[in-house]
């Protein structure tokens, strides 16, 4: 039978974010519906409110026309709604069969588990899926792709499976593995299940999806046909405006000055020896796939991780950063990738978040803080970076993501750094705030700062950088100038096998 899910006026708030804004639409069984949207558009949040991992602030779900409400993912699974996440939710030490029937192992009347029966039934499902697996194999001995298959079979093994959602399932799969996955998705679709597929790889969406639901800033935009709709059209709907214009309008009229930072064979426990230079007034991009080692290089530079070898020269003089504190005093500052866990101090207000790195300079010999000096810095920061907050005493978590990020930048710019490192600075913030950040980055470079920009968004890194270093497998894979940078070139370098050049 064909199942359906209807989302009715789903709204979800987090502190500082309206993650879902009155989302309403219907997903039908027997077709694959892709969710398309930028980071932070609300795709994953919508899945998590569907399966009870989060609770929607308001709105309701209709499953096959019946209103349902799940207090946790367990209730959702019992009702036939499963979400397959990027991170595996399986137990490595158990066998394939034990994972498939986790919590529902066939047992006799004394509660004694019938492992043979479990293996037999698991075998049936494995055959249904056409996979070369044995029910007795421990999951930890399988490749990541097959671990994911086990998860899918676990959902499939429930007789009442109605809805199955995949959250970026191909992020760590090879092409051959993707083929297997898509075959299985096709089978689930033909069984009449509702299949939801979250991805931002356009080529995949074209291949597997029948329809595409597009999201932007927590709002549902439209559902379009996956085959007949033009790709540019879909991107326009999900971004809201043409980002190309934003890059073209940036003020890039500046001169690149002398060498500012030189890194020679720097390595840590987390990254192989890396060398590069950065000039005054330059925006140096760091491109690469997730896990390429870009963040790790920066953490080694600022002394956040222990350095194993190599040298750092700032303005020709060798420096040693044993901690982020040393780096700050030397004029190198780092805006971390994960704002929530590494950037903001959630218990403190906007003012204290901005001034935290200036405590040494804002206090007298007794350590007493000069509140006058502090409020000057805060006022200047709020003004210069156009931080939208009713007042400086607001808790920082009450601000939107973009404004929180501006506070972190204001914190560092107050220390008057020479080198500003930005790690995925526009992740999860809306397009308007993004263009503000782009202008800010150009302004800093024009002022003579050296800016290092790590970004996984290729158009962003191409649009902003004067020079791009591509990393892969914890080492530098190559360097590309602004003129020769294309998405294809950066991607092929990132995925290339060899070392530099």
């Amino acid at each position: 039978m064909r199942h359906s899910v209807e989302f009715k006026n789903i709204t979800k708030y987090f502190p500082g974010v309206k993650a879902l804004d009155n989302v309403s639409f219907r997903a039908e069984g027997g077709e694959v519906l892709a969710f398309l949207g930028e980071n932070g558009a609300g795709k994953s949040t919508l899945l998590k409110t569907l399966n009870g991992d989060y609770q929607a602030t308001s709105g309701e779900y209709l499953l096959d026309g019946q209103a349902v409400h799940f207090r946790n993912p367990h209730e959702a699974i019992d009702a036939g709604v499963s979400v397959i996440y990027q991170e595996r939710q399986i137990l490595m030490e158990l066998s394939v069969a034990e994972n498939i029937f986790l919590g529902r192992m066939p047992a006799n009347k004394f509660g004694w588990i019938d492992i043979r029966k479990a293996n037999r039934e698991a075998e049936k499902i494995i055959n249904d899926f056409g996979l070369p697996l044995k029910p007795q194999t421990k999951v930890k001995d399988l490749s990541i792709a097959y671990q994911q298959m086990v998860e899918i079979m676990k959902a499939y093994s429930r007789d009442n499976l109605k809805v199955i959602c995949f959250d970026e399932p191909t992020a760590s799969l090879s092409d051959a593995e993707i083929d297997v996955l898509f075959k299985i998705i096709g089978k689930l679709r033909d069984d009449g299940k509702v299949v939801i597929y979250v991805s931002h790889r356009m080529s995949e969406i074209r291949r597997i999806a029948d329809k595409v639901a597009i999201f932007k800033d927590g709002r549902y935009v439209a559902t379009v046909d996956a085959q007949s709709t033009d790709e540019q059209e879909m991107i326009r709907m999900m971004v809201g405006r043409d980002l190309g214009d934003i890059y073209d309008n940036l003020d890039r009229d500046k001169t690149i000055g002398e060498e500012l930072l030189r890194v020679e064979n720097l390595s840590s426990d987390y990254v192989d020896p890396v060398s590069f230079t950065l000039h005054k007034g330059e925006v140096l991009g760091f491109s690469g796939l997730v896990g390429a080692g870009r963040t790790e290089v920066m953490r080694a530079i600022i002394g956040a991780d222990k350095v194993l070898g190599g040298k750092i020269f700032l303005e020709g003089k060798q420096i040693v950063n044993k901690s982020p504190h040393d780096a700050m005093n030397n004029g190198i500052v780092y805006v971390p990738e994960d704002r929530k866990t590494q950037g903001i101090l959630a218990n403190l207000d906007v003012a204290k978040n901005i001034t935290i790195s200036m405590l040494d300079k804002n206090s007298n010999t007794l350590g007493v803080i000069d509140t006058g000096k502090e409020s000057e810095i805060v006022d200047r920061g709020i003004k210069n970076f156009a931080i939208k907050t009713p007042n400086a005493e607001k808790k920082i978590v009450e601000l939107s993501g973009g404004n929180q990020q501006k506070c972190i930048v204001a914190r560092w710019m107050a220390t008057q750094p020479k080198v500003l490192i930005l790690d995925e600075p526009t992740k999860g913030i809306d397009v308007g705030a993004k263009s503000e950040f782009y202008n800010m980055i150009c302004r800093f470079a024009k002022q003579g700062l050296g800016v290092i920009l790590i970004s996984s968004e290729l158009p962003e890194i191409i649009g902003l950088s004067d020079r791009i270093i591509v990393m892969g497998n914890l080492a530098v894979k190559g360097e590309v100038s602004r003129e020769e940078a294309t998405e294809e070139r950066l991607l092929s370098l990132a995925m290339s096998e060899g070392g530099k050049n």
Partner: protein
Amino acid sequence: MSSIWKKVKGFIPGDKLILIVALIIVVAIFTSLNGNYFSWTNFVNILVAASLIGLVAIGHTYLIIAGQNDLSPGSVAAFTGVLCATLVSMGLPFLAAVLITLLAGAVVGIFNSWMVNKIKIEAFIATLVTQFVFRGFAYILCDGRPVSITNEAYISIGATRILSIPLSVWIMLVLILVFGLVLAKTKFGRSVYAIGGNRDAARLAGLNPQRIITILFVMMGVITALGGIVFSSRMHSGQPAANVNLEFDAITAVVLGGVSFTGGVGDMVGTILGVILIQAFNTGLIMVNVPSFWQYVARGALLLFALTSDYIRKTNREKALLEASKKALAAK
């Protein structure tokens, strides 16, 4: 009535007001059960009894705000009391004995912070180790027998009164004031809030969490040693079995006062109110002749109450935050 209430609320923050109201209720109940409860003498007695808890609570305020904890002060106070009494009985000048004892307190703090910073043991468990070890040392040092104190200078610490209030109370009040100001007004205090709110972010922002944690444990060790000296002076002897569960009274007081176990939240005004509240409660139990076994149950109930109110405050903070950002976002 309601307008007066509003005025009071405008003057004193809501969470402190609740503590004051709770204190009034506790005093009213015990006074109705025993008329002697509401008297100057008893008030001073409560403060004297609270003085040791108050000192330890200063350390706990800092540590818990920084996201740490310490279960060793009871043992350490007993150990340092015995140590100081032993040194004096061996003929060391009183001042020298005090300095050595305070130094011993600092060493305990260094040991605690070493376990937390370098072996990465959770503070709760690490300081449990210290609790056992130093209770043992307290007994070993005096072979299980209390060390009596005859040195006059030593005894005068517990006996001296200024403005008819005992010196031990003044020590507590002055230290609470000083450390309260340090927490609220200085770079160090601000850093403590920062590392308690988000340790990784604080480190990336240029703070040194390990050093701050070391200073906090040393501070706690020295303050506890001072408390141990004053306590032994009041008892005229260093007692190895003394001050059991001292840390729990102090933690109860601190959490009642609004310091959150999640870290990053609280202040010293709340702590002093919490300290007075818990001692008013403990003294009251004794004065209305609650059997001592039942006093344990009552104190456990008070700790549960403190933790529950911590949970409720935390939930309310989160709710308020969500509402505030809802409003801010709706206005956009």
